[in-house]
């Protein structure tokens, strides 16, 4: 107790009375199958004490395709809810009061469209749009770097973001037009300093653009800085992660003050939401992930100064596939116990004055500052993305991480240490501990789309789309024309196509060029000898075509495998993301590949593998070119894939790269021997 009788450990309110903090917003990232099925889920989650919504959209919606597009078909309702038109939004939010809800939407390439739908829904319900609260993720930089659901080139994409800020500041003041994401950077391998630097450089890129566009005076610009919010990751090294959050808060305060002259401390506050790390969750002994999630949660809640505003937790089985409702409930209960049973929210910051925390934070700040300076010197975040600088840095960090795990320098319990364990009882239920999308209910989405198209006024649709295209060409703000499109029952695919016609489509740089991996040693030497022998007796190096079919853009796995195979001596043709099975097979045929390797994380592996086999048949190449599949594939599906003709299946438990490359070469050698 201090000499004046005050208790530094007591949290007090503005009047000096003892108080307790309000908890952060509890969210669960959810959505699947159809608008109807997702609405049922949201209402159930809210009844369980969830305090905000976090909407997961399916990949077609995220990539700007309606459910009936050929690229969309295998993906509808898989990783989120399909939204084709305003009619779907009416169903999705049925019985949910928009004016009381804080809604977060994980949407990027089509974020303006989804916000327009939300505003249009409010208008049709007679709700003042100024009362809407929530967030559109809308961070295109990390889509180019890691997540892959971009559509348009950087300039057009950045314009869409800026226009949403401009619209929201005037019309929906409590809406976060975008969430600057460092979350996905960590998932792609970023170190804490990289996470800090890349995210802050990204925020600078948005604000610099808004300032340059000159639509805001100084006062509005200051408020706009106050609207920037962040979406951060929290990994298992939770002390360092906590320091990272404190570093974020300090650096953001400094940037807001010095770069944008923000006087009001309220507008300099680092506001952030969190989803804790999924990268470190393991498929092996998956029950251990529950502890990892708990510890990661501490990193973003312990320090009051750097506590998150909203938190969503993954589930213990996320490394295996999609979670069930029960799994999500279990994660929500963790948040509730931490916020309401423990005494965490009764204290001021626990770490002020800690020599260790302050020194660690200062170190992260220094590293991040020099990296931010480097990016700004390059011309800012857009230049650093377009040149491939940031992508290459992430791939390098990811490769280093994998190498540490392979060498055992970084312990991952159940994966590279203490791997002997009893079978997981959590996986023992009738459903195998996993969620499966009900394909019959996916038909609801298709039926709803058909109804919308039949019932709408075609002339109105054409006028709304023409007005949108005109705004896109003239440089006028596209938000209001998008809302008009929503009201006219334009579809997601139509809205996106209108802008594709004006802006074109973009292909991001890959991180695969110029990379090397820390794979050395006798096994690599032996592997290279085997490849040299193959090349000598066949007249060419083993040729591997790598691609990602479907709309899932998480390309890190495919890239790391490509780099590893090249490192061993393969000629690797990397054909990129968002490919149809027909495109992958055409590549393999033209390239006369010895092997096709596809990576699928979206859960559509059975459909896609079957389609690839059918395309090989059609090209007359079935049996000529073997196929391997890797990704988040449940052990139970391995046999099905093998039966469909897939030569090898790589699941999350096959994490050792040299092993993967050896097995790929094995498939090629075996196939060549059988053909000879």
């Amino acid at each position, binding site marked *: 107790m201090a000499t004046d009788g005050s208790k530094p450990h007591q949290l007090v309110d503005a009047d000096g009375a003892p108080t307790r903090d309000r908890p952060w917003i509890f969210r669960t990232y959810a959505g699947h199958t159809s608008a109807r099925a997702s609405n049922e889920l949201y209402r159930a989650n809210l009844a369980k004490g969830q305090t905000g919504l976090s909407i997961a959209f399916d990949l077609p919606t995220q990539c700007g395709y309606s459910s009936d597009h050929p690229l969309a078909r295998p993906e509808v309702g898989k990783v989120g809810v399909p939204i084709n038109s305003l009619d779907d939004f009416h169903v999705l939010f049925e019985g949910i009061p928009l004016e009381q809800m804080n809604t977060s939407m994980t949407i990027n390439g089509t974020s303006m469209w989804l916000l327009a739908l939300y505003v249009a829904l409010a208008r049709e319900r007679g709700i003042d749009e100024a009362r809407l609260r929530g967030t559109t993720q809308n961070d295109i930089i990390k889509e180019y770097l890691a997540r892959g659901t971009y559509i348009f*080139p950087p*300039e057009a994409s950045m314009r869409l973001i800026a226009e949403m800020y401009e619209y929201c500041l005037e019309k929906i003041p409590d809406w976060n037009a975008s969430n600057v994401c460092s979350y996905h950077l960590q998932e792609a391998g970023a170190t804490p300093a990289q996470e800090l630097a890349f995210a802050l450089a990204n925020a600078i890129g948005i604000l610099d653009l808004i300032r340059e566009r000159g639509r805001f005076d100084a006062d509005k610009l200051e408020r706009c800085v106050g609207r920037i919010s962040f979406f951060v990751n929290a990994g298992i090294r939770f002390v360092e992660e906590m320091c990272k959050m404190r570093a974020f808060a300090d650096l953001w305060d400094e940037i807001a003050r010095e770069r944008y002259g923000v006087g009001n401390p309220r507008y300099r506050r680092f506001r952030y939401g969190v989803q804790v790390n999924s990268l470190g969750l393991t498929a092996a002994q998956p029950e251990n992930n529950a502890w990892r999630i708990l510890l990661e949660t501490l990193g973003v809640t312990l320090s009051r100064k750097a506590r998150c505003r909203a938190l969503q937790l993954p589930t213990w089985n996320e490394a295996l596939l999609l979670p069930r409702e029960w799994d999500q409930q279990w994660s929500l209960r963790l948040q509730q116990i931490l916020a309401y049973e423990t005494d965490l929210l009764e204290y001021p910051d626990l770490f002020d004055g800690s020599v260790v925390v302050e020194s660690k934070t200062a170190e992260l700040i220094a590293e991040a500052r020099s990296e931010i300076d480097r990016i700004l010197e390059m*011309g800012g975040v857009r*230049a650093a993305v*377009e*040149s*491939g600088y940031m992508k290459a840095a992430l791939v390098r960090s990811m490769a280093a991480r994998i190498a540490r795990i392979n060498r055992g320098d970084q312990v991952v319990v159940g994966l590279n240490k203490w791997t002997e364990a009893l079978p997981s009882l959590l996986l023992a239920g009738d459903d195998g501990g996993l969620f499966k999308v009900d394909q019959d209910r996916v038909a609801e989405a298709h039926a709803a789309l058909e109804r919308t198209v039949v019932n709408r006024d075609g002339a109105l649709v054409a006028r709304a789309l023409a007005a949108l295209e005109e705004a896109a060409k003239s440089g006028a703000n596209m938000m209001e024309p998008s809302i008009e499109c929503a009201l006219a029952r334009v579809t997601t695919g139509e809205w996106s196509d209108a802008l594709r016609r004006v*802006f*074109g489509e973009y*292909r991001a740089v*890959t991180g*695969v*060029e110029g*990379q*090397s991996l820390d794979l050395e040693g006798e096994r690599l030497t032996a592997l*290279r000898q085997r*490849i*040299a022998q193959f*090349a000598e007796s066949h*007249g*060419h*190096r083993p040729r591997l075509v790598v691609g990602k079919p479907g709309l899932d853009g998480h390309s890190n796995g495919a890239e790391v495998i*490509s*780099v590893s*195979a*090249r*490192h*061993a*001596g*393969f*000629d*690797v*043709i*990397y*054909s*990129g*993301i968002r490919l*149809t099975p*027909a*495109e992958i*097979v*055409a*590549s393999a*045929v*033209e*390239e*006369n590949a010895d092997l096709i390797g596809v990576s699928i994380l979206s859960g559509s592996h059975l459909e896609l593998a079957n389609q690839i086999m059918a395309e090989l048949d059609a*090209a*007359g*190449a079935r049996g*000529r070119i073997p196929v391997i599949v890797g990704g988040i594939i449940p052990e139970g599906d391995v046999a099905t894939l093998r039966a469909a003709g897939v030569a090898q299946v790589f699941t999350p438990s096959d994490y050792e790269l040299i092993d993967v490359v050896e097995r790929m070469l094995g498939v090629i050698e075996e196939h060549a021997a059988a053909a000879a």
Partner: protein
Amino acid sequence: MKDLGDSARALDKLSIGRLVSLFEDTRAEVAGDRAAVLAALADSPRRARFIGITGAPGSGKSTLVGQLGTRLVARDPDAAVAVLAVDPSSHVSGGALLGDRTRVRFAPGEKRLFFRSQASDRDLGGVGRGTFQVCRLLYYLFDYVLVETVGIGQSEVEIQHVADYTYLLVQPLAGDQVQFMKAGIMEVPDAFVVNKYDQVEAAERAYHALEASLRMARLGRSGPPVIFKTSATTGVGLDELVADLARPDLPRKPMADKEAYFFEKWVRDQYGRVGLRRLDGGAATWLAAHDGFEAAQQAFAARMVSSPRAD
């Protein structure tokens, strides 16, 4: 080989893909198969023109090549176009990561567009060891072959011996980066393209810097340098560039000259200076005296084996 050749002539991709591998094949014993394929293709009506596309990494070669291919087949219902995109091989592992496909999207059902990636196989001239061999095949199968080079700048001189006509891509300039203009590569291209003209200001800078330094570097040449302005994003200038490379009077280099150059290169690679000295009358004479490239190679190899030092 005859069957493969016939289906390749019908632009069957599986057959062309396999034949390209035959022409890349490093084993000496397949030379006879190559000769047989070429003999089967000799009466093909097509004789491709070879267009070189070179330029530094990031200048947008692949994306532009994709656009050119699509436009060439769209403007002429009979035209068939192949792209050969060369990427570097690792000097450590010998393997390569060929990523140009990520930026080119041809409809999988379009037979008249063919794309092939090729590793440089540690050759330093900007094209691969197998590039010319594959071009000999594609000569009889397509109307246009677009050869995209590795793109590492100053060493990109080999393309002029493969291509009939070469375009150098230049990207928009930030600030005062003009030193690239001094490189010896400026002598190779027949025409220039300032690409990414959607970034108008920086592209204008590049255009003017290029024009100025070309006037200096190419004093001896007649006429002003040809510079195109393109953007694969907005489509600006693409039709003009397509019209240029498709014009009937585009200069062509005789296949015999190219064969002579690469025959000499092959001798140098295989037998060094000793070999070159034994190529007494020059590569063209040696080729003329034998029935085709493969036969000339076999005869020369035999000569080196029977009396490696002197006749």
